[in-house]
């Protein structure tokens, strides 16, 4: 069985996306996303200089930029940037020297969907975008 090749999406600096971004693989964003970013697997990386104005949800989350919204991480969460919102994590959390948190940190035992209507909206938004 052959190992799958590394599949990563890169949003480079100078990029601006208005809306939600949903992917099934890793993401590195150095641009500006005005919406939610959801990644099912891999690393969701908000690079230095990147900015997300919405909810960030992924398996492994590393924030070196700025997030203005809640952060959900099912695995490893590393924060070395600025977060204006609540942080929910299910595994481990690591805070770097440049971490700046304006919110609460909560650890959850189970992955729950707090607002099913939001998911529907996201799915509708994704369908509308497609």
């Amino acid at each position: 069985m052959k190992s799958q090749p590394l599949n990563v999406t890169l949003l480079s600096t100078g990029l601006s996306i208005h809306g939600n971004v949903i992917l099934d693989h890793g993401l590195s964003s150095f641009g500006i996303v005005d919406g939610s970013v959801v990644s099912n697997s891999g690393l969701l990386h908000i690079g230095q200089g990147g900015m997300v104005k919405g909810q960030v949800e992924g398996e492994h989350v590393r924030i070196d930029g700025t997030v203005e919204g809640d952060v959900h991480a099912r695995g490893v969460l590393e924060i070395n940037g600025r977060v204006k919102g609540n942080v929910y994590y299910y595994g481990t959390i690591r805070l770097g020297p440049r971490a700046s948190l304006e919110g609460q940190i909560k650890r959850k035992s189970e992955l729950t969907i707090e607002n099913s209507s939001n998911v529907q909206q996201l799915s509708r938004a994704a369908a509308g975008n497609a």
Partner: protein
Amino acid sequence: MDIREIQALHAQYTAQPVIIDLSSHTAAMPMLPAPERSASGLLPPRALLSKMRSAGRPALLALAIAAIAGAGGVSAARIWQAMHATAHVPHDAQTPGRPAPAVAPQPASADRPVNAAPPRPLTSGDLDTALTSGRTPLSHVDPKALTAPTPVVVAPAHDSQPAAVTQAAASPIRATRAPAAAAQPPQASEPDATQPAQRQDPALTTRVAANTASNPASQAESVQPAATRPALRPIHHIKPHREPAPSVAHDAPAAPAAQPTAPAAKSGDVQLF
């Protein structure tokens, strides 16, 4: 941050694919038992041995306990038999010898009245043996000796045999004669002086013929005239004189010796008894 660094960063969190290679796994673990073996109902020999060992210990213990108990029972039975045999041997030995001691002391106690009871107190064993053998405590008393005159053969046997045998031959009825005879000492003293005169009784001479052969004095007694007095009295008194005792102390032992002559003249004594 260039692309390579981004790629390296993502590579750190990339999930490694899971490869399931059954063939390599089974080859790596050849010592694992196949599922068919465990599924089969037969037990491996090692398991059988272990089970037999685990079950053999109690069985061995039970066998050992049974063997010990059996040996103990056998030994106890032997001891019981030995004790029973030892308890029976003297009992059996006494039963045949019982009549002898019962009769033997009779002549010695010639002066005492008739005592048909055995010399020692009766016990349950005596009753058992009497029942089993069909004998009664009075069986040793010879009825013939009470009715019929004493056979003449006894007299010569008394002379030739030792005193113990003659004592055993004596019957209780004879023992009663002694007091009866002692009741009339003056009459007995007369025949002592007139021993030769007693030879004239023809009836008694035939009975005491054997005695007379060895002892002329007894013959003289038998010949004593029967018309004047009973035959028993003169005979009974003559005996001590018939044997010229070296001393007066011999009169007592001589009394049993006189017994044979008494039955000789006892033809009519049955009435007395």
